[in-house]
């Protein structure tokens, strides 16, 4: 990592009266290049082109690549679908426990798609401005296990077949670590662990089948001087303590409509864990107007005023169709000067302007 990590940058920004602004916005970049998801997720040059356009246009404080939950499971030999207009997916397929031994023998560091994403990361490191933190995604251990075993089967296994599920999570973590080491070496400033399947677990299940393994990932990242962020979509209110306790630098949270009160979460956690989120990616960013975006961003920033460890972002990945004008509104509102005295003066000034229009 060049310079400070995310926590230090967030605090520095706060001290300067501003916030880090970093929407999860890989897919809308496709609209800037005329490409499509299938090409972008398999051609690292196209992928980088998209991220470069996003960086040039919006200059976020952190840039995230296109989300792709299929990488690790695909590298382990699981059947994967590559739609033209949607992200690659790993559908439910036959899985036998005996396959776990075969998974152990596969070193995914040599997988062509893994290497493609590593190349994207290298291009991000050398081709994007140094002031933008470059993040990489990996799929979380429980989610990889759920993709391999079947999400329903994995959920049931958290109660009825814990040892086999634990074994699969352990093997998945080994693969994820192979990928993490390559990404760190390629220049990633942060690794975002995507664990969407874990949202349905209870706290004890989450500790046993996700957090316990995420800790190994965060330790590896720390060893490589790289931040980690844990992102789980959906209502994770019941999991935030465990998420924060898994050694991550930050947790990324879904929107208030998903059930997350981000201010309450921030108030309940130590300040050394960065809290990231949580403008609604669909109702507001996809289907709202720019003024709706500005309103939600300002309201969120107001509510998080007393938390130096907050990074403004979206609650989840933005869909490709997100209007670019909405992303612009998000960035502008996020970058408005936030010092309390100046903000009060600006509000009063606005009231005067409205009362006495020129």
């Amino acid at each position: 990592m060049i310079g400070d990590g995310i926590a230090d940058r967030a605090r520095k920004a706060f001290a300067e009266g501003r916030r880090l602004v970093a929407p999860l916005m890989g897919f809308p970049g496709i609209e800037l290049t005329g490409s499509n998801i299938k090409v972008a997720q398999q051609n690292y040059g196209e992928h980088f082109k998209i991220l470069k356009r996003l960086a040039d246009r919006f200059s976020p404080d952190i840039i995230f690549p296109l989300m792709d939950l299929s990488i690790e499971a695909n590298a382990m030999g699981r059947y994967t679908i590559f739609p033209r207009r949607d992200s690659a997916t790993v559908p439910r397929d036959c899985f036998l426990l005996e396959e776990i031994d075969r998974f152990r023998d596969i070193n995914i560091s040599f997988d062509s798609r893994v290497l493609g994403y590593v190349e994207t990361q290298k291009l991000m490191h050398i081709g994007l401005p140094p002031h933008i933190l470059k993040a990489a995604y990996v799929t979380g251990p429980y989610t990889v296990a759920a993709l391999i075993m079947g999400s329903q089967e994995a959920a049931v296994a958290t109660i009825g077949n814990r040892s086999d599920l634990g074994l699969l999570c352990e093997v998945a973590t080994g693969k994820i670590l192979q990928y993490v080491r390559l990404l760190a070496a390629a220049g990633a400033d942060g690794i975002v662990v995507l664990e969407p399947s874990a949202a349905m677990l209870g706290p004890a299940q989450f500790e046993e089948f996700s957090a316990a393994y995420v800790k190994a990932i965060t330790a590896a990242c720390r060893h490589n001087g790289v931040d980690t962020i844990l992102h789980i979509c959906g209502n994770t209110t019941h999991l935030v303590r465990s998420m924060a306790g898994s050694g991550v630098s930050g947790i990324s949270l879904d929107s208030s409509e998903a059930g997350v009160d981000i201010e309450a979460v921030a108030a309940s956690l130590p300040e050394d864990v960065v809290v990231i989120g949580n403008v609604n990616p669909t109702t507001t960013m996809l289907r709202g107007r720019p003024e709706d975006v500005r309103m939600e961003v300002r309201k969120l920033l107001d509510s998080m005023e007393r938390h130096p460890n907050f990074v403004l972002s979206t609650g989840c990945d933005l869909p490709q169709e997100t209007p670019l004008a909405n992303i612009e509104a998000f960035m502008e509102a996020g970058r408005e000067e936030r010092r309390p005295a100046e903000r009060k003066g600006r509000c009063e000034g606005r009231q005067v302007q409205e009362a006495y229009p020129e």
Partner: protein
Amino acid sequence: MDIFEGIITAIGKGDAPSVAALTRDALAKGIPAEDILNKGYLAGMNIVGRLFKANEIFIPEVLIAAQAMKAGMAILKPILAASKVKSAGKIVIGTVQGDLHDIGKNIVSMLLEGAGFEVIDLGCDVSKQKFVETVEKESPDILGMSALLTTTMTYMRDIIQCLESAGVRKAVKVIVGGAPVTQTYADEIAADGYARDAASAVELVRSLVAP
């Protein structure tokens, strides 16, 4: 412990073999199938639903409970059909095109079946055409759509528009659900209802088919 309490407990524990065994016992004792359904399965799932809403149990526990109930339904269903017990209503359900997530949809299907509904589960990655054709063919009371991705939930709007074009929109109530779906989105696409979770989905379906 009476037999209904036994079924309720077994469902709560996700003990499918016990639910099946107790169901056979109950039938052998001459207890009507409808009573087993209402006082055993539905009562058990109602408790599960309450505990889930209170965040005391989570999806894995709900799943095993629903699977245990399903084990009993496999025995009860033919008997209910033979005794011409009227179904509570008919629902067609599926996860939209491009989306392979189905846990929530599967739990809803199991709960609705346990609640006495006839459920036609189309699975996942269901095309617009398939939804519309099935509605035309089956004339369900409810069409339920699930999506777990922001990129696929937009198909819900398309499907409702296809139902309009096919002239069947007014004949069916449409409900939607899934992680990125919200009440606001449901209102925007003119769905008839939105359910945040599986237990709410059952209540919603009951309210929509109530006379």
